[in-house]
């Protein structure tokens, strides 16, 4: 039975691998900070680029990345029309801290919660931070793992490429 399963899986895999180049967002629900929920495919930015950044309140480089971008976010928006969506993977241990941290840090991002890692797994994120860039059709065109100082410059270059 196991063999049947695997061969079936292999069939699906190989029969589609030839077209599978584009990458769209998976249809997964995330929580909003005010207790609601939204399917991640419903993200909108009127055909302008969207950045999705996975982070957590306990992750130093994540906060460094998002705080650094926060300082220049208005300029980025004026220049490219980009919108940044921060997906917190904080579990129930630290979930209550997300909204106060975001507010206190003066972030203007859209922030959602993914407490049991459903979106994280569906997007192949094994560690945070992990940043994705979406084009006007909301297809993923670029991604980056980790954050070191200066990485935001490369992200901006990639966003500009899309905005042109």
């Amino acid at each position, binding site marked *: *039975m*196991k063999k*049947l*399963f*695997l061969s*079936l*899986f292999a069939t*699906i*895999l190989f029969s*589609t*691998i030839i*077209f*599978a180049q*584009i*990458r*769209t967002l*998976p*249809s997964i629900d995330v929580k909003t900070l*005010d*207790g*609601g*929920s939204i399917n991640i495919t419903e993200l909108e930015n009127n055909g302008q680029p969207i950045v999705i950044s996975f982070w957590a*309140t*306990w*992750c*130093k480089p994540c906060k460094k990345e998002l705080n650094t971008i926060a*300082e220049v976010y208005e300029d980025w928006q004026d220049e490219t029309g980009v919108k940044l969506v921060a997906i917190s993977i904080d*579990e*129930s*241990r*630290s979930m*209550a*801290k997300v*909204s*106060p*941290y975001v*507010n*206190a*840090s*003066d972030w203007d991002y859209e922030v959602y919660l993914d407490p*049991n*890692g*459903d979106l994280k*797994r*569906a*997007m*192949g*994120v*094994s*560690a945070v931070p992990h940043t994705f860039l979406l084009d006007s059709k909301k297809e993923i065109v670029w*991604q*980056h*793992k*980790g954050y*070191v*100082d*200066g*990485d935001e*410059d*490369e992200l901006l270059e990639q966003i500009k490429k899309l905005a042109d």
Partner: protein
Amino acid sequence: MFKKITYSFIASFLALNSFAQNKSGEIHGNFDLNMQSYLEDEIIGAEAADEIILNNAYLNINYTKGDFSTGLRYESYLNALLDFDDDYKGNGVPFRYAAYSMGGLEVTAGNYYEQIGSGLIFRSYENKGLGHDNSMDGIRLKYNPLKGVYLKSFIGKSRTYFTYADGIIRGADYEINVNEALFLKSKTRIIIGQGLVSRFQADNNPKFKLPQNVAAYSSRLNIINGGWNYSGEYAIKLNDPVGSLTTEENNYANGSALMSSLTYSKRGFGIVTEMHRINHMDFRSERAQEKQYIINYIPTLSKQHAYTLLALYPCATQTEGEFGAQVDVFYKIKKGNLLGGKYGTKIIFNLSRINALNGGNSYLNDNMEHTPMFISIKEEELYFKDLNIEIHKKINKKLRASGILAIQSYNKDVLEGKTPGTYGVVESTIAIADVSYKIKKGHTLRIELQELFADGGEGSWSMGLVEYTISPHWFFTAQDMYNWGNYEMSKQLHYVNINCGFLKGTNRIEIGYGKKRAGIFCVGGVCKEVPSSNGFSLTISSSF
């Protein structure tokens, strides 16, 4: 079960063709590999592995087409890294699923991860770093019949290593966003929810009459108004003899858990107050089993630290009984004044304190009628205390600095499950400075200095770290942890680690060499005890 899953798989595959989707399917996934060599090091007590090199690897593949998705994970432990349980052995595909959604109904067959509320009565999840994975294998339904109404139910068996536990786990949950469901335009938003989980396991015990069906249920409430947010959850577990079986005695005490949080925030300011009270609230997929069989999650009520010496003595929830409270304050001093400087200054304060329950928990008392004082702090045994304050400041365009001060108390006997009176409480004071300097575009040097002055445990530690990063492709770090204050001269040792990593596109490769100390490591609320080691490591993380 497997037959069933395969058939539903085929059925959903066939159904795939009837989906009116013009888009072709997509295949994506990710791959992670952790390889480590183990050399003998008598000084730090590290043992060589017979295999010389040990290796863990995972490959996830997901296929999606419209509302249909399927996927699997291949896991390889040849053999598992020393800090993993050696029951992770060999290769396999322990995770595979197929799912589709239509008209608000989502059906998953095979493996899935699920959580009810905060996880007090049920949570299946994975954390590869800690070797934790209790995915479910079975059927899950999620249904969204009306706006703001979310229903889910599931049945399955819970994974432990490469097998599944004996118990059959059934669960159901609803959540109603009252404002959305009743089209209320009120500024106050209310969300309510209730969940129920039940485990069936046959009673084969000749001596005791064991309950074959054991239930746990919880109710939760979330009220949001402007910057205010209240969230509370109360859970009860009924007559579960898990872990308390001996030849002569058994215990059917109920368990309970209450957690409550109130937060307020506005631009530049945020405060979080939390408390919880836990009493005999371990819930396992099989009676009288080890902790690998736990299927619920009691969030630890302390801050999750990212700096090594702050996390040297980490708190762990005592699911048998504890009472705790925590406060966090986030404050950003505006730019432009003396304290705020040119860029503003961030201050973060955190205090947590956890102690034993009054009169012990219901399990110890062996009495279902046992009712200890609900809230009692002063007279009870202290488990953990952490008072810390962080300051983050950007000084100019090139220079950033952070400073942290912390005072911690760590009840080693309780938190590490040792015999009472062996080690007592470790009292420590920790100071950290973290400075990063931008040398030129893309090049940054970062230095961390950490000091831990301790009374008890392994004594005092110092740590230094130097990191040089070249965005976007390279990073290099060297660090030394030095246990200069160990009470045994022969254990006043250095633990040096060197790491170097390369990132390009979606691939990340890191190699390292160094010595690790034995100790408790916690990530994401789960802790494990790891042995000391000395050797090379290779980590590859890639996605497609």
